[in-house]
C-alpha cells in the first residue's frame, strides 16, 4: 500500500511507526535529560498523543509530529537534573592492537569524553549525538528539530570545538 494511503489509526501502521521511531525518539530525549526512565515515559506519551490524533496526522507527517511532541513534552517538564549520560562502553575495537597503556588511556579518555558531552549545551548535545550515535543526517536532524541545516552544522561544529577544549588530555 502506498504510504499516502496509510493511516496511523490502523493498529498495524501504528505499531510499525512505533517500531521505526520509538528508539530514536527515546534516545533523542535521553540526550537532553540523561534519564532513560523519563525519556521512555515521554516517548510513550508522544505515541499516546499520536494515537489520539491519528485521524489528523497523515502517515508521512507522523515522524516530525512525534519529535515535536516529545520535544515539547520535555521542555514542559520543569525540573530536570543535570545531564549525566551513561554510555554503554562497547568493546573497544580501535584499541585491540594497542598496548595495555593505550587501552587504559582510552578508558580514561572515554570517561572524560562522557563528562565533556554532559557539559555541552543542550542544543549542541542533542544534535551532536543524533548525528554521531544515531547516524542521522544533518537534513534529518534539521527536520526533527524544525531548524535549518545551517543551524545544525553550527551546533555540530560548536560541539566538537567545545569537546576539544573540555578534554584535559589535549591541554597538556
Amino acid at each position: 500500500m502506498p504510504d499516502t494511503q496509510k493511516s496511523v489509526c490502523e493498529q498495524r501502521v501504528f505499531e510499525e511507526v512505533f517500531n521505526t521511531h520509538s528508539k530514536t525518539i527515546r534516545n533523542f530525549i535521553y540526550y537532553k535529560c540523561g534519564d532513560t526512565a523519563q525519556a521512555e515515559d515521554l516517548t510513550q506519551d508522544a505515541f499516546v498523543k499520536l494515537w489520539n490524533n491519528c485521524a489528523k496526522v497523515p502517515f508521512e507527517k507522523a515522524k516530525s509530529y512525534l519529535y515535536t511532541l516529545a520535544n515539547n513534552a520535555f521542555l514542559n517538564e520543569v525540573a530536570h537534573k543535570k545531564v549525566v549520560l551513561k554510555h554503554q562502553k562497547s568493546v573497544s575495537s580501535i584499541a585491540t592492537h594497542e598496548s595495555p597503556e593505550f587501552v587504559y588511556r582510552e578508558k580514561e579518555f572515554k570517561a572524560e569524553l562522557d563528562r565533556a558531552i554532559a557539559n555541552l549545551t543542550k542544543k549542541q548535545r542533542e544534535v551532536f549525538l543524533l548525528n554521531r550515535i544515531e547516524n542521522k543526517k544533518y537534513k534529518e536532524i534539521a527536520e526533527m528539530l524544525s531548524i535549518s541545516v545551517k543551524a545544525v552544522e553550527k551546533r555540530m561544529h560548536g560541539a566538537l570545538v567545545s569537546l576539544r577544549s573540555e578534554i584535559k588530555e589535549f591541554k597538556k
Partner: protein
Amino acid sequence: MEHQNNDTYLAKWLAGDMSDEELIEFKKTNEYTDYKFIVDVMDELETPDYDQQQNFSATLNKISNQNQKKTTKVRTLIPSWAYAVAATLVLFLAYSFFFQQTTYQAQLADQTNFQLPDGSEVMLNAGSEIAFKSFNWDSNRTLELTGEAYFKVKKGSKFKVVTKEGTVTVLGTQFTVNSRSNFYNVTCFEGKVKVTSGKLNHILTPGNAISIQDNMATPYKTTEAIPSWTAQESSFNAVAIYEVVTELERQYNITISGKENLKVAYFTGRFPHTNLQQALTTVFDTMEIRYTFDANRNVRIQKYK
C-alpha cells in the same frame, strides 16, 4: 588559517563534505588529531539498552488507561459541550475498536467453543466467561477467566490466563483452568504450564494437575487425555462437595436448595451431563447425602439424621 573564521567546517568534515584541498589542509593542523580521536572514540559509544516490546506495551497501557478516564470524564461534561462529547465519542469508538475487550460467555447448561485471534482454541464450560483484548493479541496473549475453560494454545508468545485466584502461564499447549469461587484447579494435558497463585508457583507437565482450595495446594495425576467436561462429564479429585453441587447446578441449570445442610466432605468421581437423575445418584448416593427430586427438577438436600 582560512577556515578558522568559518563556524561549520568541522560539521562539513564530519559529513564528508570537505573538498580534497580543504581536507589536506585540515589534516596538517594539530587540532585534526584531537578531533579525529574524539570522533573515533565517539563511534564506540552507545546508548543504554532499549526494550521496544516493553515500551510498546507500556504505551498501549497508557492508551487504554486513558480510555477509562475519558469515559468517566464524558459523564461529567455539561450539555452545552454535547458536540465535543460526540466528537470524543467518535474518536473513542474508533480506537476502542482496537483496544476494547472481547468477551465470550457460556450460559448455564451450555458450553461454547471459539478461536482466539491467533487460532488458539478455547472451550468454555457452563457458566463461565472469558475476556481479552484482541488488539496486539499476538504479542500480548493475556486473557481473564471466570469459571472453567479448556485451552489448546498455538505456538507463539507467552500465553497467560489470569483469574481471581492466580495466573496460569503457558509454557506448552493444552490445559484446563477451573477457577470457581473458592477453588482453583489446573490440569495440563500437553506441553508445560506454570501456575501462580499467591506465593505458590508450580510447573505442571502432561498428566499432572493441581487443585488449590483454602490456600492449600494438592498436586495429583490424571489419566484423561482431554478434560472430562468436554466429553459430557464432570470429574473431580477430592473437591469440596459444595463445589461439586454448584457444578451440578451449572451443568443442568437447576437450583439445588438446602446446601446449608451439606457437611464438609470431599468428592472424587464423575457425573454425566446428560442424565440428571443419574448425576444426582452418582454424587449424592456415594456421599450418603439424602435429597428429594421432583418432576420440575427441583432438588432439595435433606438434613443429616
